[in-house]
């Protein structure tokens, strides 16, 4: 199912971001409003009451109080409201709009209050003969300081609120966007190790692009599993179909030889050798194919590499003492550490090294040297021969299936699958193989393996 435009992630993201910005902006606006609104009116302080009451109780004085006029101390009349007349409202000039608004509101108030505003304290209203007046005085230093402090507090609260708000919003965003991505990553990893149905939780049910991706991923996982199964079945069938006739030929050859009961005739001998060669090739092609298709199950254990190579040398001697004598395992070098114990698959590791050593034995007639070096978290196992080396341009081809150095000169050499097998097996083990000509002659193949597998 394709994603409809109205379900698309881009649209959702757009709306989400818009909502978020809107939310942040409006909340900060509201906060600003909340903290910047004028301080609530306070009841008149006793000192003001004491100073002003005597002055204002006299109706003649009261009547003469027009805006702009100074009263006792710093008190000044700022507005007056008469019950009737043409200009019943009089306000001091040069007063800001917001102050005017405050004045108008305060004129309607039921009883006298004081309101700090900007640098002034608005006081009133006072009544006399239904006439009302409002007074102002400059704020005292102390009051001014209090105002600044409370403004600062307001600002701090505002900043904190904004920080917490935006943090919360980004967490929501992160969870909403990043969690599905993490799950997809995990699922991909699961697929990589061959799990048919990775854990996608509710992701495939989503209607946006992420849902589409999750569905595609789970289909791919299924297809992969199916083709892996097919591959496995094919390998199994092919090997069965090829091995059965080989088995018959092998038995038939033995029977024909025994019936004649004299030394085997050379043609039969040739047939025997080719039979062996053929089963060898089949075995190796199948191993190669299993390795390449990830059908080999690794069983990681602690592998003592020194023991492994020594066992390998011993086994080669068992088959052919002459060959065994040619394999030398170098003891630890003073500055390179000992042969390590690696977390690896002992069979595969042996396969890697055995093919390299056998190859060297087949193509040269001198010593084969095995040594190990440590390089950070990597161990390099070197298989070096003292033969003629390999032309530079062929070094890379060494690891291609069916490549053989110089078939005309090495008629008895293998089928050209050993090195390819080594490389694939090393890759499966999380390592790699490189080949180079040693400066002092001979080919040197290096198997690099991580200490802990991956």
């Amino acid at each position, binding site marked *: 199912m394709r994603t409809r435009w109205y379900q698309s992630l881009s649209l959702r993201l757009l709306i989400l971001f818009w909502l978020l910005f809107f939310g942040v902006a409006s909340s900060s606006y509201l906060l600003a409003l909340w903290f910047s609104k004028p301080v609530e009116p306070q009841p008149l302080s006793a000192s003001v009451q004491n100073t002003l009451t005597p002055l204002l109780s006299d109706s003649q004085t009261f009547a003469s109080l027009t805006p702009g006029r100074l009263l006792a101390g710093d008190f000044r009349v700022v507005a007056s409201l008469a019950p009737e007349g043409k200009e019943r409202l009089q306000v001091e000039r040069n007063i800001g709009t917001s102050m005017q608004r405050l004045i108008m509101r305060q004129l309607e108030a039921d009883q006298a209050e004081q309101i700090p505003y900007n640098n002034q304290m608005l006081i009133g209203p006072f009544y006399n003969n239904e006439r009302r007046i409002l007074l102002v005085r400059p704020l005292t230093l102390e009051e001014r300081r209090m105002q600044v402090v409370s403004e600062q507090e307001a600002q701090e609260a505002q900043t904190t609120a904004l920080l917490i708000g935006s943090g919360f919003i980004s967490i929501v965003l992160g969870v909403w966007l990043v969690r599905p991505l993490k799950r997809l990553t995990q699922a991909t990893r699961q697929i990589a190790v061959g799990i048919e149905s990775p854990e996608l939780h509710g992701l495939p049910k989503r209607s946006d692009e992420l849902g589409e991706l999750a569905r595609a991923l789970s289909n791919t996982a299924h297809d992969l599993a199916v083709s892996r199964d097919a591959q496995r079945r094919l390998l199994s069938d092919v090997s069965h179909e090829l091995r059965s006739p080989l088995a018959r030929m092998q038995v038939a050859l033995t029977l024909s030889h025994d019936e004649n009961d004299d030394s085997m005739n050379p043609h039969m001998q040739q047939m025997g050798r080719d039979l062996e060669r053929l089963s060898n090739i089949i075995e190796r092609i199948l191993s190669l194919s299993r390795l390449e298709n990830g059908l080999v199950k690794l069983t990681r254990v602690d592998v003592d590499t020194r023991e492994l190579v020594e066992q390998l040398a011993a086994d080669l001697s068992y088959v052919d003492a002459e060959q065994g004598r040619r394999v030398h395992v170098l003891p630890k070098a003073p500055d390179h550490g000992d042969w390590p114990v690696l977390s690896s698959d002992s*069979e595969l590791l042996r396969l890697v090294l055995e093919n390299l050593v056998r190859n060297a034995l087949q193509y040269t007639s001198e010593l084969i040297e095995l040594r190990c070096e440590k390089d950070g978290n990597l161990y390099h196992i070197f298989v070096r021969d003292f033969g003629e080396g390999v032309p530079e341009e062929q070094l890379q081809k060494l690891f291609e299936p069916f490549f053989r150095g110089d078939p005309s000169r090495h008629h008895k050499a293998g089928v050209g699958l050993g090195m390819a097998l080594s490389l694939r097996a090393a890759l499966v083990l999380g390592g790699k193989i490189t080949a180079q000509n040693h400066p002092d002659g001979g080919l040197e193949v290096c198997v690099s393996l991580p200490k802990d597998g991956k």
Partner: protein
Amino acid sequence: MTKILLVDDDAELSSMLEQILTREGYELTLAADGETGLQRALSGSYNLILLDVMLPGIDGFQLLQRLRQQARSTPVLMLTARGDDDDRVAGLELGADDYLPKPFYPKELVARVKALLRRTPNTSVTPEPLEHAGFHIDPMQNEAKVDDVVLELTPTEFDILRVLVQGAGQVVSKDQMSVAALGRQLAPFDRSLDVHISNIRKKIHHNPERIQTVRGRGYRLMALASA
């Protein structure tokens, strides 16, 4: 006369193997499919069964499983043309005694057959009962006990345990065990011994770690800490 049952649907191969094994002095019975094979295996008394994996009807694994369910401990040598190591080991896990991948040298087959027959109960080496670390082996009775609980072992498993008990807590190398129990040297990539050991461990389910793996050297029996 030693009787061998060969279950394989490959008629040509079967008849040729019959010739070879008859010449070695064995009496061969052939079965070309799983059902016939199972019937014969259950009805007749054979000293050894050669069993192919890919069979029409029930396959070699199923046949082996049913055979072992009927508590028949006849030695079984699996012949397999399937490539996977998993397939090879699967037979051992189901209680086969050894396996031989196809194609094989007939000489190798004869050698394995001889090795497996050599250690069937009546030709046992040490008739005296053995005991170590709670394990009790009585070769005469063909009985193995751990802490007085009788273990149901296949002949191969029995022999492996016998070698371990004989070792009396010393490390017994894989090669030693392989020679004693399978009658052959262990090849480099051979996991059969490990599978047999793991089968025995499963049967000592209350205490599988009593057979201890000594990395790179072999196995040994561990006495219980409290004992």
